């Protein structure tokens, strides 16, 4: 039985297959309307989520399946002190597959160890969020028709942003991608991530200036620079506007640039950018549902030995 706890739990070939299925779903969602009929997704959300929870639930319903679950720890037995292991043992009796979000890092791995049904990590604290990575890859592939030979800018908080780390790890598996890491010095990408890029022979550069590099980018992945991450207020005030994407900065970019953001955004992308055709972050939300449909189907099919889910 397969679980997806981190993005690399799927091989590059399998991720490519997921993307192909998700793109087919986009073309003809009705063809998939009954693929998981009679199947139940347990949606175990120990902490609040808007997009991830609803996209998992919408994905299962769109496949003809049903959803049970909870949307906060307060409304589950976790409030009485039940462990993740005991909860998943019980849920395994009620559902065919589960998506779990938990504030503690490693919670999904613990769930997988005790589960009799496939477990999908829907975010474990600041650790992993594989379906966000697959969503990002699908969005890039849908816009660029390839995941190779791209110059990818990642901008903002590159130190603590889990989506950034996962995306770099995943995209560096594809050939000829170059990375431009745009962040204040305080929020640079960790050494172990640049170590992975070096090991895989990927070109990368670090800069603190978005405007100086935006004209070269094929993809710009924006994240939020949070005030609390700075050591002093003066640095935050000095730098915060540098990492806000607006039409003035976007004017220097290629017409073919795609701007992505894992959402929710606060102010790192000005609202005026939303109507620019290069803004792909709302399409990204739609792709998030398609890739989760593809993943649910794959895990249920694998559980049935490759047969229909």
């Amino acid at each position, binding site marked *: 039985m397969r679980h997806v706890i981190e993005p690399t739990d799927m091989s590059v070939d399998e991720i490519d297959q997921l993307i192909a299925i998700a793109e087919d779903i986009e073309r003809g969602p009705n063809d998939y309307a009954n693929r998981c009929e009679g199947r139940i997704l347990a949606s175990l959300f120990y902490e609040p989520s808007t997009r991830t929870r609803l996209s998992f639930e919408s994905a299962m319903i769109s496949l003809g399946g049903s959803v049970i679950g909870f949307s906060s720890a307060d409304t589950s037995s976790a409030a009485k002190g039940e462990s993740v292991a005991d909860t998943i043992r019980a849920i395994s009796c009620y559902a065919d597959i589960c998506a779990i979000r938990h504030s503690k890092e490693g919670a999904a*791995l613990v769930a997988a160890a005790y589960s009799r049904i496939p477990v999908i990590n829907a975010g474990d604290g600041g650790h992993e969020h594989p379906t966000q990575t697959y969503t990002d890859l699908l969005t890039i592939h849908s816009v660029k028709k390839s995941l190779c030979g791209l110059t990818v800018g990642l901008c903002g908080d590159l130190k603590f942003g889990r989506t950034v780390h996962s995306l770099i790890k995943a995209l560096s598996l594809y050939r000829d991608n170059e990375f431009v890491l745009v962040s204040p010095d305080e929020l640079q990408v960790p050494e172990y991530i640049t170590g992975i890029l070096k090991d895989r022979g990927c070109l990368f550069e670090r800069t603190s200036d978005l405007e100086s590099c935006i004209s070269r980018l094929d993809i710009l992945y924006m994240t939020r620079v949070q005030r609390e991450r700075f050591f002093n207020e003066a640095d935050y005030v000095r730098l915060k506007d540098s990492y806000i994407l607006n039409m003035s900065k976007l004017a220097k970019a290629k017409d073919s640039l795609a701007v992505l953001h894992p959402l929710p955004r606060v102010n790192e992308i000005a609202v005026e950018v939303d109507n620019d055709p290069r803004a792909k972050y709302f399409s990204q939300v739609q792709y998030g549902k398609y890739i989760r449909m593809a993943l649910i189907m794959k895990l249920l099919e694998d559980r049935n030995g490759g047969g229909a889910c």
Partner: protein
Amino acid sequence: MLSIDSVEKGVVIDHIKAGTAMRIYQYLNLDALDCSVAIIKNAKSVKLGKKDIIKIEDRIDLDLNVLGYMDPDATVNIIEDGRITSKLKLSLPDKLINVIRCKNPRCITSVEQEIIQMFKLWDREKKSYRCVYCEQENN
């Protein structure tokens, strides 16, 4: 010169980095043994300058993973009839189970105490391990 009887039958952990024998004693739960156990600190060593030694007067099964983690350069001599019958070489184990605890307060192991503490070797040169749940490095 301090004199401690030689071991007739048992285990001698030699070439322990000076100053770490007590920690090894604790990690290996040697205080639970009934037999004689001698800890020699700061013994003279040609190779190390000074070293610690632990002598155990019984043929016990040591957790070599724990010992390898504590001091991969130590040597384990098995003694029979007063002679060394075998020498075991240690190395850093690939996995540590319930040897060290994750210090990350955001890790699931910090709130669910019954979960097995598991670490994987991350960097052999730096002797660095990462928690399998949260991937936090343990130094």
